[in-house]
């Protein structure tokens, strides 16, 4: 039992914030994490000291230990663990234990919430935090500081001396998000964050999501709480405005707000009230994740007036059967097309998120996703390759169908192995997604006598028997590497030019 004898705790948060394990160069200032900023704000309000080790690339043992040594004396080290970062986090925890044998190691974030047994089994881990961590960690710091028994804190699991696990229940959620202090933005090297470099602030004014999409962990996060009905909550519109004003007063160079709430219009009444206040009191260009099926034209008009210049929307699959049967997203093509027309009408450009390589998908179903994007004239598309997160319904479906290969699939480019949709086809669709969306848009814009045969020819280029998928994937990989490097250079060395180009692109797209 760690006892700080009345001294306040010194805590280091370790945040592995990279997706490409081969990326050894530091390309940006990384990404903001609302969860870590919020934990820091709560702990600092309680008088404790909090530091951040923001890992922007895979660290060697020597580099990691050298950085760790710069933080001075530490009582607790907390690891924020995404699923794909878990293998690296285990290494970092091992090196941490070697360098600091007496430090208390806690792990949190969504991977821990989904599979706490797996994480607490890591030898170096003393404790895991399930669900929201601010007040559990504050209680841990307070009790450690006061020399009290902390092994009974709700939401935390501990390793007992005999090797057994003390599994405390998860604390109930509180309904009023306004009680959480404004996040500690400056925990990060905020001015050098990837978003800040292009004058953009990443903002989150809510917690949770009550949709039940089968590929997402949200349904399982919700289950861990005793009062899951209030799992999805927003700060009050007034408090959300206060959040923004505080942020802007600290970082006046911010010119664009990027709301990263799971579904920004989840509560339509809240959303209508908020965007009205945002228009009056903030008025900066903004964007956010918007859901198709709960929008009205009136709200879209208000969004335009408030400053929305672009929106992100989850389209996921263009095949209604995939959406209804496997994804639990009950949106019809008609809903999607109507909503999209409103965005075009009011000059708001749209980005869609799409998933390729879903269980039971094949290239013909994936082609429907490309075509629906073309029909709604998506301005930008993000074609993600399906990743089966453990504990999600779609993971179970994939496993039951035998699509999840034996052994470690976390580093595979296409995690599922499906005979009807081989890896090279999934990579081809993901790689050439926007290319074909553009061409199908042309086809739909042509007179029917010309558009129909052109569409047929495009169909052949995607699904034809003799398409050289592997070769095309290789060519695309080379092109992407060059393109991403150029974007890195623009963002890092000429951010103002990048910002101008970005705004110009959105305006042009919204007009077209």
């Amino acid at each position, binding site marked *: 039992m760690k006892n700080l004898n009345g001294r306040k705790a010194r805590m280091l948060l370790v945040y592995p914030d990279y997706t490409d394990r081969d990326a050894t160069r530091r390309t940006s200032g990384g990404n903001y994490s609302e969860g870590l900023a919020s934990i820091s704000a709560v702990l600092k309000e309680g008088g404790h000291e909090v530091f951040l080790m923001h890992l922007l690339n895979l660290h060697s043992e020597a580099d990691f230990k050298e950085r760790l040594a710069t933080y001075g004396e530490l009582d607790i080290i907390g690891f924020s663990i995404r699923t794909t970062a878990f293998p690296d986090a285990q290494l970092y925890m091992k090196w941490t234990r070697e360098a600091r044998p007496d430090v208390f190691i806690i792990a949190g974030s969504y991977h821990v919430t989904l599979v706490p047994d797996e994480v607490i089994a890591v030898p170096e881990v003393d404790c895991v935090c399930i669900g929201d961590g601010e007040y559990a960690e504050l209680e841990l710091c307070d009790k450690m500081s006061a020399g009290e028994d902390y092994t009974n804190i709700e939401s935390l699991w501990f390793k007992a001396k005999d090797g057994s696990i003390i599994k405390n229940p998860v604390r109930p959620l509180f309904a009023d998000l306004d009680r959480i202090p404004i996040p500690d933005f400056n925990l990060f090297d905020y001015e050098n964050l990837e978003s800040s470099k292009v004058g953009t602030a990443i903002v989150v004014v809510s917690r949770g999501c*009550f949709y039940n999409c089968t590929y997402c962990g949200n349904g399982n996060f919700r289950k861990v709480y005793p009062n899951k009905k209030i799992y999805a909550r927003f700060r009050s519109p007034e408090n959300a405005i206060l959040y923004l004003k505080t942020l802007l007063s600290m970082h006046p160079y911010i010119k664009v707000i990027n709301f990263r709430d799971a579904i920004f219009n989840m509560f339509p009444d809240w959303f209508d009230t908020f965007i009205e206040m945002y228009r009056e009191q903030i008025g900066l260009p903004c964007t956010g994740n918007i859901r198709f099926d709960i929008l009205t034209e009136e709200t879209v008009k208000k969004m335009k007036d408030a400053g929305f210049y672009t929106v992100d929307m989850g389209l996921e699959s263009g095949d209604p059967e995939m959406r*209804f049967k496997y994804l*639990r997203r*009950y949106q*019809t093509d008609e809903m999607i097309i109507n909503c999209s027309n409103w965005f075009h009408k009011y000059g708001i450009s749209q980005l869609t998120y799409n998933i390729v390589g879903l269980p039971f998908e094949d290239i013909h179903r994936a082609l429907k996703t490309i075509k629906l994007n073309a029909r709604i004239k998506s301005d930008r598309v993000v074609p993600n390759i399906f990743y089966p997160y453990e504990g999600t319904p779609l993971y179970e479906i994939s496993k039951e169908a035998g699509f999840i290969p034996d052994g470690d699939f976390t580093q595979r480019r296409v995690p599922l192995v499906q005979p009807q949709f081989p890896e090279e086809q999934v990579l081809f669709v993901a790689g050439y997604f926007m290319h074909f969306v553009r061409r199908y848009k042309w086809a739909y814009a042509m007179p029917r006598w010309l558009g129909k045969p052109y569409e047929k020819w495009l169909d052949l280029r995607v699904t034809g028997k003799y398409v050289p998928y592997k070769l095309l994937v290789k060519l695309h990989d080379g092109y992407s590497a060059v393109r991403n490097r150029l974007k890195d250079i623009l963002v890092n060395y000429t951010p103002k030019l990048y910002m101008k180009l970005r705004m110009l692109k959105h305006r042009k797209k919204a007009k077209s």
Partner: protein
Amino acid sequence: MARMIINQDKCIHCATCEVECPFKAVLISDKGIFSIDDELCRRCGICASVCPMDAITKEE
């Protein structure tokens, strides 16, 4: 006999009722409209208790 009714103006299609219903009584039409099958429904009220929008009520 009591019936569970979904208020379509409040429903946001989150499917929490569908996930939680122990009798698989929540139906979703191909237009994405949620309703409750009176034959399968046992009026346990779980759907109403979990609905985050309070869109489901029991009508006598």
